């Protein structure tokens, strides 16, 4: 496998924006706390700002752990609607962002149970991804590399997968991941250690 190494960032190479970017949405400067207070009092515009601020990350997370864009959209939509309904009872024990990841994680787990009854066995972790042919470059290679990561993630056990994406892609702290997944920080460390090792082994074929 051959990938051309350049000095530019992926965003420059492929025209990608930062996480959460999309066009034509007015910049909302209010803090999460301010938006939360307004939304609790029925301000749907404030909640729409929450949706646009955190929804893309939630959907990206859901897509990585579910491996399917439509399922990810469903999980994200359900999680955000349930967040609106639960606003009056949200005590703020965790940040708004962590709470939203908690909700989407639960919805994604529900979808996984309903739509994919065959669990991933740990033995599958021994399998390796095949190296892809040396024909693509630039965007196509990036897409293939991301595709390989998505495939590799699907072979990790659920909590390993979710922990890894929340840490490495979404940048949550260990205690935030623990809160989102309902586990301890120590367990998160274990999931991340094993997840990184398994993913690194699978992606080794791309060297």
């Amino acid at each position, binding site marked *: 496998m051959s990938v051309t190494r350049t000095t530019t960032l992926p965003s420059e190479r492929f025209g990608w924006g930062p996480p959460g970017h999309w066009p034509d949405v007015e910049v909302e400067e209010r803090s999460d706390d*301010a938006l939360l*207070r307004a939304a609790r009092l029925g301000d749907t515009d404030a909640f729409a700002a929450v949706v646009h601020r955190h929804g893309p990350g939630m959907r990206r997370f859901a897509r990585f752990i579910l491996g399917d864009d439509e399922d990810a959209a469903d999980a994200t939509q359900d999680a955000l609607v349930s967040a*609106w309904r639960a606003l009056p009872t949200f005590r703020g024990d965790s940040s708004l962002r962590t709470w939203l990841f908690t909700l989407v994680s639960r919805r994604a787990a529900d979808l996984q149970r309903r739509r994919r009854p065959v669990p991933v066995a740990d033995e599958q972790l021994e399998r390796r991804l095949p190296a892809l042919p040396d024909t693509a470059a630039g965007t196509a290679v990036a897409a293939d*590399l991301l595709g390989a990561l998505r495939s590799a993630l699907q072979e990790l056990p659920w909590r390993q997968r979710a922990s890894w994406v929340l840490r*490495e892609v979404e940048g949550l702290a260990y205690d935030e991941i623990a809160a989102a997944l309902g586990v301890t920080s120590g367990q998160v460390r274990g999931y991340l250690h094993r997840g990184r090792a398994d993913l690194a082994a699978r*992606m080794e074929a791309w060297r």
Partner: protein
Amino acid sequence: MTGGMHPLDQAVELARLEPVDAGRWEDTATGVMARIRSSLRPGRPLRLLLPDDRGGTTYVSERVVVAALRRALSAEDDLAPSAVRLEVDGDRLTALHVDLVGRYGADLQALAERSRARVHETLAGLPLAAADAVDVRLSVVDVTLEDPRR
């Protein structure tokens, strides 16, 4: 080859910068807000002061009252409402409990008094029946380092 960078690290970098599909995301966001707006309930009806031209009674929903109060109370610097609870007897508002968050260091007493005046102005301006008789109870339940509206 992926240069000196491990393929996993490069894939992570790509994943973090992966663009949102604007069209698909807009569908999701629109769907969320449509479901939320269709689930909104007006709340209890509250009688307005003035009869209409034919002598009928006009009501305003509890949700409209809360929205009006939210806007009025958010107009004050260094203060934001965090909860509004209504006590209703039949179709008349009898008491209002408002939780407020103020900025640390602000004159909270003065802010609360101005807020009380804004509440009464808002209720009278709807115009809600027996607005003057509504028992308005304000509580500053939290303070923040920055303007709580921001």
